């Protein structure tokens, strides 16, 4: 069964460093999303991406964040200068046209120290 794959599963980075979280969405999907879940809190929408551009973003998704689909299979989230409060589980999701549900990856746990 096709699935969304995220790498790495856990990343530790120093404050101020850049980090790239990687996702391989399901191959024929057209809509891509990043969500995050700070420990003990709810899952929050960050950004949606369609047709090679951001379609919607939340107030969390400030200038420190960027997304990219560098090739036909990967979808990345970059945090330019990480802060302690960026520590969270980051989920990638994808959806196909005509589908109502998004499929989520296993998540990347980012720890900023």
């Amino acid at each position, binding site marked *: 069964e096709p699935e*969304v794959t*995220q790498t790495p599963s856990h990343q530790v980075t120093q404050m101020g460093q850049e980090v790239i979280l990687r996702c391989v969405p399901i191959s024929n999907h057209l*809509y891509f*999303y990043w*969500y995050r879940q700070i420990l003990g*809190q*709810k*899952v*929050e*929408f960050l950004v*949606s991406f*369609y047709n090679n551009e951001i*379609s*919607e973003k939340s107030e969390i998704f400030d200038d420190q964040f960027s997304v990219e689909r560098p090739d036909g299979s990967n979808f990345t989230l970059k945090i330019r200068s990480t802060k302690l409060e960026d520590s969270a589980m980051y*989920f990638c*999701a994808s*959806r196909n046209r005509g589908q*109502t*549900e*998004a*499929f*989520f*990856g*296993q*998540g990347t746990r980012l720890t900023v120290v």
Partner: protein
Amino acid sequence: AQSVTQPDIHITVSEGASLELRCNYSYGATPYLFWYVQSPGQGLQLLLKYFSGDTLVQGIKGFEAEFKRSQSSFNLRKPSVHWSDAAEYFCAVGATAGFQKLVFGTGTRLLVSP
């Protein structure tokens, strides 16, 4: 704006007993509604969804949910809980227009006692 409330942070149920997890939503029209489950160290797995039609929807693992427009609710139920159902359960509402971002509730952690 969309919002979801899950009033129960933790629920403990005995194995074999029935389960109901509450979810209330706020949305201007009939939304898309979802229940996701997150087992420890795992991602989010879709249990079931509602977007139109029959208000009682069946999902995987023996779960069902009922959409009640008058109460703005979408409660999740299971007639007999198994120990493997212990997990965190998230209700989410999706916009029916645009790019369908999801707004999640704060989650309910289900504990199953022997």
